[in-house]
């Protein structure tokens, strides 16, 4: 808030102080300024600073250097969390982009009932991850769900029980996650496809390029910004992955579907090991920064050059 009053005082002598110019706008922006500085900058800095301390039940400033980070990377649970997030993240990105684009392309083929299909593909996005997780938990239930249905059809050795199998549990989560999130990407892709000039299609048709080939070789390269936006969106959603896991598996079986966000919250609010939680959340922040920098470079650096 000191920043708001930074115009030098000497201008105040000549004409009404610049500090008081736009006074109302400044007052009205106080909530925004407070949020930006206190919560976003202040809060993040506070957490990063405290990740170098040995805080346990209460935050303290007893420095322990990188101890928390060393301990973090020695913890199996963290390694599992990171691996899980990696598997989920890569699969989720690929499948969401492929499914989202395919659906958008199908909807863009001048079909009937387009809005009905779009409504169906997008409705899961309105539901919370808790509802999504619980619904899929029930569908994937080994006793009554898909596994039992297929067994009833006569295929008695059929096994499809991802939520109770440590090796495939992340794919059980992925099915639910894709169900919830692909509609959004489809919508963005569809908007992107609608933005492509009809003449491009005509030109391709004249040149005798097939529909699929046109999509892959002409349309997709043209939609690069849309793909990048989608990727950033998917990526920022993946790092936040928490509610879905809590509702669908609660990290189980054992700790085989733990994710970093859950690790942080468990250490901060249940295990009363704040330092670990801070260190883990700082690692999450780092991963976001690693994703954001290339994006910001592509998005804003590219524009200046081109």
């Amino acid at each position, binding site marked *: 808030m000191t920043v708001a009053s930074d115009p030098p005082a000497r201008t105040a002598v000549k004409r009404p102080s610049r500090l008081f110019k736009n006074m109302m706008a400044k007052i009205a922006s106080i909530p925004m300024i407070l949020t930006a500085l206190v919560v976003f900058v202040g809060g993040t800095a506070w957490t990063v600073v405290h990740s170098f301390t040995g805080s346990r039940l209460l*935050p303290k400033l007893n420095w322990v250097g990188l101890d928390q980070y060393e301990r973090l990377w020695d913890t199996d649970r963290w390694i599992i969390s990171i691996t899980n997030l990696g598997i989920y993240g890569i699969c989720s990105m690929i499948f969401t982009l492929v499914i989202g684009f395919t659906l958008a392309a199908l909807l863009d083929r001048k079909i009937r009932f387009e809005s009905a299909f779009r409504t169906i593909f997008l409705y899961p996005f309105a539901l919370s991850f808790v509802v999504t997780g619980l619904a899929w938990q*029930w569908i994937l239930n080994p006793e009554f769900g898909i596994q039992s249905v297929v067994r009833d059809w006569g295929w008695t050795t059929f096994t499809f029980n991802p939520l109770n199998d440590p090796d495939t549990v992340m794919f059980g989560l992925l099915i639910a996650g894709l169900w919830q999130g692909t509609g959004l990407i489809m919508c963005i892709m569809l908007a992107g496809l609608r933005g492509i000039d009809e003449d491009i299609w005509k030109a391709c048709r004249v040149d005798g390029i097939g529909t699929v080939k046109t999509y892959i070789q002409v349309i997709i390269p043209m939609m690069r910004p849309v793909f990048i936006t989608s990727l950033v969106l998917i990526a920022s959603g993946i790092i936040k992955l928490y509610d879905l896991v809590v*509702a669908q598996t609660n990290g189980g079986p054992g700790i085989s579907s733990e994710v970093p966000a859950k690790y942080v919250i468990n250490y901060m609010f249940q295990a009363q090991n704040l330092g670990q939680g801070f260190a883990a959340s700082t690692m999450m922040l780092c991963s976001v920064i690693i994703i954001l920098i290339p994006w910001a470079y592509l998005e804003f650096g590219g524009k200046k050059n081109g």
Partner: protein
Amino acid sequence: MADMTANAGIEPRGPKPKKTFSRGNIFLYGTLIMVSMYYLLPLYVMLVTSVKGMPEIRLGNVFSPPLEVTFEPWVKAWSEACTGINCDGLSRGFWNSVQILIPSCVLSIAIASVNGYALSNWKFKGSEVFFTILILGAFIPYQTMLYPIVILLRELGLMGSISGLVLVHTIFGMPILTLLFRNYFASIPEELFKAARVDGAGFWRIYFQIMLPMALPIFVVAVILQVTGIWNDFLFGVIYTKPATYPMTVQLNNIVNSVQGIKEYNVNMAATMLTGLVPLVIYFLSGKLFVRGIAAGAVKG
């Protein structure tokens, strides 16, 4: 955002395909219908399960249609389902969520619209810097800010209370809403604003008499965005409230994933449906505006 929504409204041009039942079309519609079934499946399963009796569930599978429709599970989920020692059902969570939703929605939209207005029409030194920080803040994982906010709320004496959660929702709704309003107000012709200035109208007068009435559509988009967002929130609910003030999603999770007692799948699914109902209704009522809201949410920065 502006060109995306504009393009979404443009219908495909050119002549309609001639043959209705060509092989390509059958493949196209076949795929779309198959995919639609996958998307509709969970809703169908939830609905069917929630109107079956427990004996029927034990005998059948999740997909079989109900032989006997009963609404008892819905009643039970609403008023009797247990979380720990409390057995007053999901209704408590529902009313908590309503109490959280309304003030957070009003407060966050009010603040964000004024912010957006100030940022587009009353730029002052540093305003863009704060705005950039705000937008970048939307990308910071919530986990990094959770504990500092606990301290903040404790200092304010709001920890565990509904007002505390309202404040949290207002804070975290701010980046996207401010962006939404800023872009909208920036698209309103500047002459209008200048004319009002010449006529001697001040900050608030222009806001209330000129900007607000013109921004009604964007207010609807903001309301949709916030209602679904806040209703579906789980993380903040579980951390900043206590069992008596848990929002609906948290209570739902506690009911369904509680380990004690026999699992009543029909009650669980009825509870899940009940929780999903509010955003679903909003979604189906709002139609294109919902898409506009998420398109706005999608193109951050």
